[in-house]
């Protein structure tokens, strides 16, 4: 028994390495499913992301924590490997060898998509909040901010002094958005022409959720990742900039 517990502690103290092995197994299994069940039509990486989300649900159910499977000690390395440091480092790496001509050509549409994306998502969230009976500007703005991204939600809520119930709702809306973007992007992509650098830039600007865009494009076409990630990275910043100020002002006036 002593030996077993030392083996366990090897996995735990080398958490990131354990995470590499674990993710490798998930991806191997996902490509196996993709080839056997869908003849490779449904991307292995899309299946891997869905399996990851299911495991996150199970992990959350078991531990009651907020970091999905990473709250189980032996899988704690997933929080580091899947955290923003490695994710952003790898996203920057994908820009290596990017076609700068495409960036310049789609620049204007990309910037426009950022503004439309933030304002549109906010408006939808705010309308849903009103539909469900919220009437004060602070709650409406905070819930709208959550549908922008789950980072803009709490930033706005804290700035405006929203209630903790509204904050929780706002964060939940943001996480739902992020997960839906991860899962549905490969399904919608063929219908909305998401198959070139230009539309990927616009997609990044409209969706904005970094994790959603990162995973959604990875599951659709990894070549498009840097383009979508490029605009998405400005989205949360723009949201934090205009939601608690300009958009809150507009909501208060209405």
């Amino acid at each position, binding site marked *: 028994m002593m030996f077993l517990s030392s083996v366990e502690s090897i996995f735990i103290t080398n958490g990131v390495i354990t995470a590499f092995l674990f993710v490798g197994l998930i991806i191997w299994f996902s490509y196996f499913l993709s080839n056997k069940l869908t003849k490779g039509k449904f991307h292995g990486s899309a299946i891997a992301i869905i399996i990851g989300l299911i495991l996150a649900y199970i992990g959350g159910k078991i531990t009651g924590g907020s970091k999905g499977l990473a709250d189980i000690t032996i899988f704690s390395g997933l929080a580091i490997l899947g955290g923003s440091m490695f994710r952003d*480092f790898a996203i920057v790496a994908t820009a290596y060898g990017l076609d700068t001509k495409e960036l310049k050509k789609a620049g204007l549409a990309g910037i426009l998509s950022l503004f439309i994306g933030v304002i549109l998502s906010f408006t939808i969230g705010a309308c849903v909040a009103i539909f469900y009976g919220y009437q004060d500007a602070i709650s409406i703005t905070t819930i709208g901010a959550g549908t922008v991204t789950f980072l803009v939600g709490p930033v706005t809520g804290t700035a405006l002094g929203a209630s903790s119930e509204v904050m929780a709702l706002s964060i939940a809306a943001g996480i739902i958005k992020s997960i839906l973007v991860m899962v549905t992007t490969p399904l919608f992509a063929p219908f909305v022409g998401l198959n070139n650098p230009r539309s990927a830039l616009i997609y990044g600007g409209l969706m904005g959720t970094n994790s959603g865009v990162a995973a959604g494009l990875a599951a659709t076409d990894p070549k498009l990742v840097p383009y979508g990630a490029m605009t998405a990275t400005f989205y949360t910043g723009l949201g934090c900039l205009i939601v608690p100020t300009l958009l809150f002002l507009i909501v208060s006036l209405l």
Partner: protein
Amino acid sequence: MVIYGVALLAFSFLLGLILGELFGYLLGIDANLGGVGFAMLILIFLSNYLKVNLNFGEISEKGITFWSAIYIPIVVAMAAKQNVIAAVDGGMIAILGGGLAVFISFLIIPLLSKIGK
């Protein structure tokens, strides 16, 4: 050497984040404004410059392409640490708000794609 590629990537990454922080600070918001985007542009610029002006070899390049290739596994790890429970517990407001925002945004992609073509 491989480390030159990794170091170049690390340099671009950190400089980008510093710029993003500065940009946020100047605009008076407590958030990193586009740091990752700046880092990407810095990497593109520097790697093009080094390829032409210095002998930035194929092996150095591997220090960057490795991280680019490990991107999808990182995203899978990221999926496994999401707070899926909170999302499910958010109830109808969260589902409707988040869901409609995603659906309508998808519909707008083809419209915006036409701009400036």
